[in-house]
């Protein structure tokens, strides 16, 4: 269940993996059968209350079954009443919405890369989410991931849009000197796809892809790990059977047109742009590899958090609030319009609309619909970080032993707002690890070593 779903709905799950009743492969299938409409709260007060209530419910009922049984027996309204008895949800919501202390710094700079993953960071500016928190934020378009990293380290940016594994890589000192970074919120989940050149439209089985040249945006990215995972599951060794290249997203489309590469795993707006320009087609969405996978993160250095805790809290609230707004299907069209201008994504609105609403041309003449093509859920599950570290090890980016939990807990500030909530007297969720399935294979965050050992294809180290 997403942070923004109604926690008092017994039919919804608090955690991902299969569906809530257990009879369907996925939650979306389950919902399609039951015609369940998930009523996400409309007003912002309600939205905040939802975030707080979710956290409280997670804390009170760490076990999914117990929560469901409790809700089934007493009903949602009495559950809310009972919970309010010993936890002041209303007050907590007010504190969450308003913030606790005086802002140390109101003029902030946040860097972003122009892709749809940055949607919450970007839209918070034109739609006024930063202003609501009393912040004057400049969102600054940045030329590349390495520049984002350097500008955040140089303190030109107070916080930035980063690929979810980047803060781990930076904190561990992979590709740079180690600097403590944190992820207070995940920017988006899903929202990537594998796009292939038109000439491969009959080669839909990855087993036929030997010798392909495929592009990814950055080495420390979910794109890299997901593509490698997908290839390896189909018996293709990503290090020897295909060529993986790090290519900036706009060059991916140009290279695909020029026939220099056979395909890429990239952010949805780049995939859709290739389709829009008629140079490629959508092979699969990344959510078909791992439904609910994290993609980009909202990152800040530990230093910013310690020197300006209140500003950091306000910023995180603005991001969480924007993420909540973005998670609602009915807002997606207006968001696409808000972030399309040259100052933000600088892309044709029709492309962004297809990405955000999930009704899109697949490049082969068909129109597909998947409302969760890209979705927004800020909770930085520490198990996500653990999974990423298993993949960093699997492909030889980290050598030797890893203190999975230690690193995950330092970097992924569990609750999208763990720190924020704690400062406001809230108890963060009891658990910040959840298991999930990647291509049908379940991942137990308690046993990363066993998980790593279970892969046949991996770099021998």
């Amino acid at each position: 269940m997403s942070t923004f779903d109604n926690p008092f709905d017994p039919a919804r799950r608090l955690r991902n993996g299969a569906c809530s009743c257990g009879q369907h492969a996925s939650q979306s299938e389950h919902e399609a059968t039951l015609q369940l409409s998930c009523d996400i709260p409309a007003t912002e007060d309600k939205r905040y209350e939802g975030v707080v209530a979710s956290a409280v419910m997670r804390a009170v009922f760490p076990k999914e079954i117990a929560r469901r049984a409790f809700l089934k027996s007493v009903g949602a309204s009495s559950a809310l009443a009972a919970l309010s008895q010993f936890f002041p949800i209303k007050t907590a919501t007010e504190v969450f919405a308003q913030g606790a202390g005086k802002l140390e710094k109101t003029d902030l700079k946040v860097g972003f890369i122009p892709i749809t993953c940055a949607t919450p960071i970007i839209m918070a500016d034109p739609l006024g989410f930063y202003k609501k928190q009393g912040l004057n934020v400049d969102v600054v378009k940045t030329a590349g991931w390495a520049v984002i990293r350097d500008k955040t380290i140089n303190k030109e940016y107070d916080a930035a849009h980063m690929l979810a594994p980047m803060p781990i890589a930076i904190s561990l000192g992979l590709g740079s000197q180690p600097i403590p970074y944190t992820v207070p919120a995940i920017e988006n989940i899903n929202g990537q796809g594998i796009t292939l050149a038109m000439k491969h439209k009959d080669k839909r089985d990855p087993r036929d892809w030997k010798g392909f040249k495929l592009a990814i945006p950055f080495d420390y990215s979910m794109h890299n790990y997901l593509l490698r995972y997908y290839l390896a599951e189909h018996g293709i060794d990503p290090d020897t059977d295909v060529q993986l290249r790090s290519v900036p997203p706009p060059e991916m489309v140009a290279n695909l047109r020029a026939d220099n590469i056979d395909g890429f795993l990239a952010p949805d707006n780049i995939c859709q742009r290739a389709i829009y320009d008629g140079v490629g087609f959508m092979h699969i969405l990344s959510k078909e590899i791992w439904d609910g996978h994290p993609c980009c993160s909202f990152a800040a250095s530990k230093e910013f958090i310690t020197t300006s805790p209140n500003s950091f809290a306000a910023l995180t609230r603005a991001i969480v609030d924007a993420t909540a707004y973005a998670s609602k299907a009915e807002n997606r069209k207006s968001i696409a319009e808000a972030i399309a201008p040259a100052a933000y994504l600088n892309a044709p609105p029709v492309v962004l609309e297809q990405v955000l609403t999930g009704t899109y041309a697949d490049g082969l003449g068909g129109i597909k619909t998947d409302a969760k093509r890209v979705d927004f859920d800020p909770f930085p599950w520490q198990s996500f970080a653990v999974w990423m570290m298993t993949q960093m090890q699997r492909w030889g980016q980290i050598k030797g032993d890893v203190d999975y939990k230690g690193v995950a807990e330092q970097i992924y500030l569990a609750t999208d707002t763990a720190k924020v909530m704690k400062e406001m007297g809230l108890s963060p969720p009891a658990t910040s690890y959840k298991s999930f399935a990647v291509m049908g294979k379940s991942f137990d965050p308690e046993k990363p070593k066993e998980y790593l050992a279970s892969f046949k294809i991996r770099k021998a180290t």
Partner: protein
Amino acid sequence: MTFSLRFRAAVVSIAIFLAFIGVWHLATRQTASVGTMSPEYAKLMGLTATSGKSAMPGPLDVGAKLWEHLKRPFYDNGPNDKGLGIQLAYSIGRVGLGYLIAVIVAIPLGFLIGMSPLMNKALDPFIQVLKPISPLAWMPLALYTIKDSSLSAIFVIFICSVWPMLLNTAFGVAAVRKEWINVARTLEVGTFRRAFTVILPAAAPTILTGMRISIGIAWLVIVAAEMLVGGTGIGYFVWNEWNNLSITNVIIAILMIGIVGMLLDQILARFTRMVTFPE
């Protein structure tokens, strides 16, 4: 009757230009329509996919877009979207500053090297090693140590435009006729006075040639530097439009970069003519 050479050259220039535009227009014309697709599907696709429009813009597209830019060159929509005029101004500002620092460093140092054979020999290996380094190779180092992207861009301009000025100044100073210096010596002119009244005017044309080469290099470098660090400037504009795969805007930016580069070069050329003297 015969026309002046100037007039005939202008006619040929215009003819070449028109031929170029004509070929460009023909090459990027809309090709035949591509297959049939349902109207709903077509609505989600771009013109290249639906009507076979060339991926390369034609001269008319570029002209229309250029007119749009020229109509409002100084608009400012926040940190990421500014008019072409503002972007160019940022770039020129950076180039000007980096170049100025290079002048301040290179000319006195060039004098020193030119006047002292010892320093010439001693510094030569360093200059030879540093001179061929590409501007972009400096960028990560600059970002990492200076810790400010704007200053890093200026530093890169400086480090790349300093060498031609330095070498030309040194060469010009060393090549001043011995007779002139000897005359100054017999008149018991001091070192500083000799440098300013005899050597500087004599070496000025060579020095300015170095400065002219340098401004060209500085302008070459700024585009690459701004593409790398982003933020503002014409290089950032190119990167931003490349992100949007808007080849039209990229072409416009290239045109603008060329024109500004030419103007900068012409200004220096005029200065060079001013200090050149007949022997």
